[in-house]
């Protein structure tokens, strides 16, 4: 009996710890939602739940044209970044995972090295390149710069996933006369589709959240992405920040991501842990 009650206490302690962690993880977002639902007179109330719910902040965010534009910009940039890095890395991961040739390891190690570069260390070089290509203040400038972030980890994760496909499948296709390009598109692509969804999602999230390049390579309200508009959102002075609006915008920006994470949590975890890139 004593043993049993001891176990019960341990289990209870375990679940209390879980609740505590969940509380710490969720409370800031919960508080943002609560604040966004308050009108300006009750904004500074510190009741833990909203007493009078109003959607005025959301209405105002939606009626703000620049916010809509930046939302659209973010979607386009993040989708293009994810698709482009997937295309480039799928091709490259095929020989990296399945072939033996000189320079393969060096290639993978170089990609790994790119992940360790501080982003300010490419900032002025990229700025010059973007000016030269005449794409400053354009979405393509952001997509170009995001490749530094997404390509290395997409490459590593896809290579790791592709390494695990049994060799027999590939050999069977080659024996049937398939070219290597056909093997990649018709055989590997379907097998890899869960992995592709995962890595694509990770690239999407990375691009959606990026700030430094977005801040630097865009100039006008119309071409900004959401994080930049949110960062530059300000009132007349530091003390007059429109907190209700900022919180409403924050919730709107985060909601799609949280939905994705709740739906795909298992895949995201497997994607993040599959890349040997993190050790």
């Amino acid at each position, binding site marked *: 009996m004593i043993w049993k009650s001891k176990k019960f206490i341990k289990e209870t302690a375990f679940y209390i*710890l879980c609740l505590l*962690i*969940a509380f710490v*993880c969720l409370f*800031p*977002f919960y508080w943002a939602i609560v604040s966004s639902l308050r009108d300006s007179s009750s904004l*500074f109330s*510190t009741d833990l739940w909203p007493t009078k719910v109003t959607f005025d902040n959301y209405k105002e965010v939606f009626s703000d044209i620049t916010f809509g534009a930046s939302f659209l910009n973010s979607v386009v940039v993040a989708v293009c970044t994810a698709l482009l890095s997937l295309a*480039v890395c799928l*091709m*490259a991961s*095929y020989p*990296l995972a*399945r*072939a*033996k*040739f000189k320079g393969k*390891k060096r290639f993978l*190690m*170089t990609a*790994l*090295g*790119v992940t*360790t*570069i*501080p982003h*300010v*260390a*490419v*900032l*002025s*070089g990229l700025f010059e*390149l973007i*000016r030269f290509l005449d794409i400053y203040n354009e979405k393509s400038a952001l997509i170009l710069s995001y*490749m530094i972030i997404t*390509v290395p980890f997409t*490459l590593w994760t896809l290579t790791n996933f592709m390494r695990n496909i049994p060799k027999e499948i590939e*050999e069977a296709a*080659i024996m049937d006369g398939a070219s*290597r390009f056909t093997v990649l598109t018709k055989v590997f692509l379907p097998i890899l589709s869960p992995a592709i969804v995962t890595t694509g999602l990770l690239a999407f999230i990375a691009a959606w959240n990026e*700030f*430094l390049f977005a801040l*630097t390579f865009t100039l006008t309200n119309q071409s900004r992405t959401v*994080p*930049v508009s*949110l960062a530059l959102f300000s009132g007349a002075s530091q003390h007059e920040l429109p*907190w209700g609006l*900022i*919180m409403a915008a*924050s919730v709107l*920006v985060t909601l799609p991501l*949280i939905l994705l*994470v*709740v739906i795909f949590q298992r895949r*995201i*975890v497997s994607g*993040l842990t599959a890349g*040997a890139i*993190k*050790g």
Partner: protein
Amino acid sequence: MKIFHPQKFRKRQISHSDIFLNWIFLLPCLLTLLICAGWPLIRTISFGFTDATLDNLKNISFVGVDNFIAIARDQDWWKAVLNTFVIAIVSVPLETVFGMIIALILHRNFKGRGWMRAIVLIPWTIPTIVSARMWAWMLNDSYGIINDLLIRAAIIKEPIPWIASNSLSILSIILVDVWKTTPYMALLLLAGLQSLPQDCFEATEVDSIPFRTTLKSIILPLMKPTIIVAMIFRTLDAVRIFDLVYILSSGNNENATMSVYSRRFIFDYADVGYGSAAATVLLFFVAFLSVLYISFNRKKLKEMD
């Protein structure tokens, strides 16, 4: 009727000796890395030795190490170096400890694990700028919920200026950074736990050895390589911190990190030469860590083949 040609068959089998084709497949990726990372990196380093400005990137003259000498003489730079290292040195160990606790929880099979996994991922998913804004609101000195709760709980009497005060705002930056990146750390460590032989977790259950003992004498020693790699990786990330500092230090010089300092000179003061030189110094600071990180991973790559 087709005749079976053994020789032809052998030829068609994948030997993967076709080096040319391999490099065709690699070419787009290689070009992307060269254009987006390699070239800009080289250009930034070389800008550091010139007097380039934002409006004039072309007709620039070589000024030797003048920029670097000026940086070494700038008090603000050394403050930025100190801030950067304080943030990294305090937040990475905290993230490792919390990350390990969460990883051990997620590794256990219990009811609601899926939910726990999703919840833990949320701080990592939220865009850094949003986290910074949310926390800035919670830590607001006059209206923030945190001061309010602390006062209500009678822990403090006066509201604490979490963000307005320079020394405290470093603390706030560390707090938000730990909150935001612990989930990622937890996942890295979880991956390590999953690759351990699973019977080392059973020792606790079967032989009723206290979990503390199992953790100290079995799990942690086996996890050491994973923990080291994860910590190096996170340190590399922490040293280049930009977003959080940009929002939470509200633009003052006192709390700038090396990334914020460099960007400010390149774009706010238009001094591309000086700012690039500062970025180059940051690059050299992390180079040692990068080499360490890559060599750890190379060992791992060898084991796999």
